[in-house]
């Protein structure tokens, strides 16, 4: 493989990660406010189909992406209403919505299967695209990929650097404390769930209008992405930068699967494509195991040297969810 090939490949990894990135960042924002949006797998499919259909009929890519965002926001609204206002389990509602939206995408998308529609082209950044190495890698991408870079940074800045972002952390962590600081917790939860949903809704059109352009119904290969994105959200420890790292790692592994296929002809391609999933479980295990009591007990029995190393390792990997994730808040 030449350097150029590798660079192009890595650039394709950045592009392929963009939709996952929207999903992960959107979910991170929603969960930061304390609401799990488990519908993500369905939302992505429905917004992919919807975005494609809108873009095709209107011949406007922009409307296609907006359509996807509206779909994502509406699904999130159902999650928010059912859990915040009606006190139903977020898991139950989210799971059912995941199924409804998936089947709805297949049902409503039937007339659009295998139709040709608009597709987002790469938009090299003038000047920067010619920079050696970096130009190929970063600046010869589609607008969607640039947007994914922007979303990571914006989300990170918002959560950690702005005042409302700090309060967002607070709402998911300790709603009562946010409440005594004058925040309308449930209104904010509605807002962030819907905002997060709209960002998740960008993931679908990013596939159907760019990364995997077109709508192919059940064989679109998008079913399952949303569940992966949920896992990456946890891996990311609810931090946009760490989540972005997870999403890129996932895309990289999938790309490596494709690359390795030529050198490992005996392993069927389907296997390599799902190789990241066992890794996902493993990482979830590593991320969570530091919280288990028996681990603490076992560690306490170790001699000081190894104990310190293992403890530090576990602490670095460990991610604690927002303390009030999934817990309804009533002020009185």
């Amino acid at each position, binding site marked *: 493989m030449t350097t150029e090939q590798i660079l192009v490949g890595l650039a394709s990894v950045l592009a392929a990660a963009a939709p996952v990135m929207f999903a992960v960042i959107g979910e991170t924002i929603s969960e930061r406010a304390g609401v799990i949006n488990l519908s993500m797998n369905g939302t992505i499919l429905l917004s992919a189909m919807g975005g494609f259909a809108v873009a095709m009929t209107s011949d406007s890519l922009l409307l296609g992406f907006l359509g996807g965002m509206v779909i994502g926001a509406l699904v999130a609204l159902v999650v928010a209403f059912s859990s915040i206002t009606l006190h139903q389990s977020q898991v139950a509602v989210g799971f059912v919505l995941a199924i409804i939206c998936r089947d709805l995408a297949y049902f409503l998308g039937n007339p659009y299967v295998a139709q040709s529609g608009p597709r987002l082209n790469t938009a090299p950044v003038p000047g920067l695209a010619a920079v050696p190495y970096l130009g190929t890698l970063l600046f010869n991408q589609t607008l969607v990929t640039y947007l994914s870079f922007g979303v990571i940074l914006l989300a990170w800045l918002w959560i950690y650097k702005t005042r409302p972002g700090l309060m967002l952390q607070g709402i998911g962590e300790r709603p009562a404390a946010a409440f005594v600081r004058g*925040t309308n917790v449930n209104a904010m939860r509605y807002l962030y769930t819907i905002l997060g949903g709209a960002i998740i809704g960008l993931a679908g059109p990013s596939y159907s209008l760019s990364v995997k352009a077109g709508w192919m119904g059940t064989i679109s290969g998008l079913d399952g992405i949303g569940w992966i994105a949920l896992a990456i959200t946890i891996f990311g420890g609810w931090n946009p930068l760490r989540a972005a790292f997870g999403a890129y790692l996932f895309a990289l592994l999938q790309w490596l699967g494709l690359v390795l296929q030529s050198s490992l002809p005996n392993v069927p391609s389907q296997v390599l494509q799902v190789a990241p999933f066992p890794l996902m479980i493993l990482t979830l295990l590593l991320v969570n195991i530091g919280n288990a009591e028996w681990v603490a007990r076992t560690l306490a029995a170790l001699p000081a040297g190894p104990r310190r190393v293992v403890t530090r390792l576990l602490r670095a990997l460990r991610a604690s969810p927002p303390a009030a994730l999934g817990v309804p808040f009533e*002020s009185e």
Partner: protein
Amino acid sequence: MDVELRDIHKTFGKVRANVGIRLHVPAGTIQGILGENGAGKSTLMKVLSGFIHADQGAILLDGRPVVIHSPADAIRAGIGMLHQDPLDFPPMRVIDNFVMARGGSLFPGRAAARRDLKKLAAQFGFALDPDAYVDSLTVGERQQLEIVRLLWLGARVLIFDEPTTGISAAQKERLFAALRLLADQDKTVLFVSHKLEDVEGLCDRVVVLRQGYLVGEARPPYTTRQLVEMMFGKAISIGKRVPCAVGETSLRLRNLSVEDYRLKVRGVNLAVRAGEVIGLAGMEGSGQGLFMRAVAGLLRTTGGRISLDGRNLTGRSHLVSKRHGVAFLPASRLEEGLVPGLDLTEHFVLAEKKGGFFIDWEGGRALAEERIAEFNIRGTPASHVEALSGGNQQRALLALLRVSLRLLLLEHPTRGLDIESTIYIWSKLKERCGQGTSILFVSSDLEEILQYSDRVLVFFNGRVSPPLEAAEMNTDRLGELIGGKGWPEEEWVEEMTADG
């Protein structure tokens, strides 16, 4: 700022938390608000800080009526409250906690805020590292952060809810100095506490709440006796004590230590005889809860030894101690004691499982009927536990206990119950003592402690008194000890080892 509360009423369900409370506090005053747990102090303060709404009544600031519907309104009016468990965000940094609630610009302006934080902290002699994470701070430091944060937000009335719980003596001194400084700056300080010593040492004036009513006022010089009488009611009548014939030592604790993030209970030595009743007195969160759960095997001890009838139970889980005749009855009946959604028969079947695969529902119902009758529970075998009244839930919990027990651990066995239920429940408990069961119970009702215990352990801020003979105690002395008065400077070391 001058604060006036007029005729504040607040009820929760059937409980009257505040009844017609009137209170006027001029600016620059440290106003003490004294009362035992459940007297209505916290409710009153939550009303003032917008956390809950009063059913009736008015709030006037500097003589003008204000409407406070939410904490946001309270902050705007200049009222800030420090909650007993500081309501902050433990996984976040000090500086982020500090800047969060202030409105205005999108970006918090950490650099300027950091300067303000340091300046305010220095003013009170607080050492706060802006970059430290809040969960690494002590409770005292978290209070300091809340004080400077509220002042920075422009609070002119500061409410402190039990601020001296869980902080060190040095931190308490610093806190009191800060409060005096606040009063000097013409701020109004409302100091809610059940600790007599703190109130006496700090407050310019004191009001006492009892059972939702404001029952009295006092100004310095205070007399402890007068305050205790107001807090616990004057007419304390002690019923006839029925001492039990006690047997051999059953439970033996040696140097038992247990701790959580805010409290350490160290080196408790105790020998309990079969049939003996030990009352654990102290204000909520003084360590008695930790102690009970450690003895029950629900919390890991950090040191010491627990043995029951000569069997070592140290470090064993509750399931093991349960097999050896220990039972634990939690105070939160529906959260920990009973299973909402299951009916009484199902509870009896669960508690009585003796083996076998299939449930004998007929037998279960018969057992339920029998126990319901025996324990006078108002319900049927098909009643779901969450539909029972509190008293009946407590009876159900007692009815669920196995027949032969060696040690019974109870948290607030009669809290929220009417007199009839209370008397009934104690008659049942005393029956068990007659059968050789030892009882340890936590209660905040001094009368209950003195009437039913053989010996008493008093808890204050994690400190534990040696076992005191209940017959030689009176409510005044007990009330003082609970309030932290009359404790020797040193631990009661000699007596404790002598007894253990």
